[in-house]
């Protein structure tokens, strides 16, 4: 089985973000970057399938600046076989442009499965995987939290609002990974050493036209300062009064 995994380098969300002078990007100074969590689970899923089959290849792709190679190396140190870096000055906001460039690279790879994360926390869009599926005309199942493969078909579990769905799909397929599918392994020391020798090819990303651009960034409005109503059960009547008369939600 030939499997591709698309991974994105994203900033640590614990950071205090600052808007750059241009007003349309974030100041990257001081930010820590790592692989998107959903993408780490996607790598884990691919590795587990390969291990179970006892054969196959796991190829990792990432589009972005040179530093995206660190993200690919991390996946290689987890156990992926080789990496492809699609070089771009920076990662555009437009998910369609990213998808187009990834699809152009994936198109001739004859992959049986292509994994994505459900969403990247920085773009908060969740669109790149299914767009790639359409561009390649692959079957696609999004936000999976369970996966079984047998006889060249798959069954995936999806969490919906208040329901669970079990879907059957044919190969080749694009799968996007939700939380709960697995726990990503940590790279072992041996894995980190081995990753240094694995192939990591770099080529320019073919981004094409951008249809969506960031016009401006702003910090969310502060919430009006709240108040501690009181302590313990004694504060309940006052809370109820405020919910009725001030917030008008009761």
């Amino acid at each position, binding site marked *: 089985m030939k499997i591709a995994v698309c991974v994105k380098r994203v*900033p640590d*969300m*614990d950071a205090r*973000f600052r*808007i750059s002078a241009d007003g349309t990007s*974030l100041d990257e100074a001081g930010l820590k970057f790592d692989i998107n969590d959903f993408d780490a689970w996607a790598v884990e899923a691919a590795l587990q399938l390969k291990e179970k089959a006892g054969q196959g290849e796991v190829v990792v792709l990432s589009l972005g600046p040179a530093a995206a190679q660190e993200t690919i190396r991390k996946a290689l140190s987890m156990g992926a076989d080789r990496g492809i870096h699609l070089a771009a000055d920076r990662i555009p*906001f*437009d998910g*369609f442009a990213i998808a187009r460039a990834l699809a152009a690279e994936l198109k001739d790879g004859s992959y049986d499965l292509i994994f994505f994360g459900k969403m990247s*926390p920085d773009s*908060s*869009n*969740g*669109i790149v995987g*299914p*767009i790639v599926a*359409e561009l390649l005309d692959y*079957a*696609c*199942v999004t*936000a999976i*939290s369970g996966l079984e493969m047998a006889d060249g078909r798959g*069954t995936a579990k*999806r*969490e*919906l*609002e*208040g*329901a*669970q*769905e*079990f*879907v059957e*799909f044919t190969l080749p397929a694009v799968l996007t990974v939700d*939380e709960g599918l697995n726990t990503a392994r940590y790279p072992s020391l041996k894995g980190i050493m081995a990753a240094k020798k694995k192939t990591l090819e770099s080529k320019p990303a073919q981004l094409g036209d951008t*249809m*969506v*651009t*960031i*016009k401006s*960034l702003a*910090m*969310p409005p502060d*919430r009006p300062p*709240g*108040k*501690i*109503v009181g302590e*313990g*059960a004694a*504060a*309940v009547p006052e*809370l*109820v009064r*405020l*919910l*009725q008369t001030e*917030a008008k*939600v*009761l």
Partner: protein
Amino acid sequence: MANIFAFAEQRAGELRKVALENVTAARALADATGGEVHVLLAGSAGIAQKAEQLGKHGADVVLVCEHDALKDYNAEAIAALAADRIKSGGYRVAVFSTSAQGRDLIPRVAAKLGVGIVTDVTDARIEGDAVNVKHPVNIGKVIATASIASTPAVIGLRPGNTTLVENTKAARVEQVQPVGDPSASRVKVKEMKQGTSAKLDIGEAPVVIAGGRGLKSADGFKLVDDLADAFGNAAVGATRAVCDDGWRPHSEQIGQTGRVVSPDLYIAVGISGAIQHLAGMRTSRTIVAINRDKEAPIFKIADYGIVGDVAEVLPALTAAVREARKSH
């Protein structure tokens, strides 16, 4: 003048609240330019009955597609149908929801049309040649204004963010045909396990009571269930910590890797208020926090807080809410 397309999401033959939100938002966009709202409603035979409800919220035309294979959400068939209608109708904007179904559907539609797409939109306007939308990025710590240059622009609204407005139109119903064979999908829903269906969904309920580790155990959540019961219009949510521990299903998880909700009232019970949790609830209209640690970060974004033990405060609050609802 620009006509606007809206998608009506249904499950088990019932419209979901997001369907009405999409129509309401589409109506506002259409009114700004003097255009019409055309809504696509797909399902099995009989779904056409729901057209009237869509008309109440501002649909001028309801495009109804009835087919056995469209009973459940059928990603490939619905995406093909929606893309086909949007293309032939020449719409300026196509309005969907960023619900679980919408997340799956919209990127496929945008890809088929080859047009720009933004999901989790909290505000949308047509301004000159562009559709400008507000979209929280970096788990809601920064708000982007993005400009979509294509026609149509495909947008997914943040669920719960649009206040429903009735704007009664006598909607014309037009029957439309599926594109290709909807039974031929490569992806098929084999089984759907509905949760406790009597309960409201966290994305739709006007009140969400969310619990965290402060409840101590799965049984401890009974305090939260009771309070939700007392409200009568409340759904129960949870933090990742308690979903990971198996106290609650992941479908109830609110936050960065879970769901994003914007209810009228959010009550955080025994929740510390980690940034990843705030990502999923910070746009709630009124936030109440109950925590025994007065330094807990949740108090920083709460409108009202009670410092205290959940075992003491919750039963008292449940009784008081029950009393207050009775006197309505």
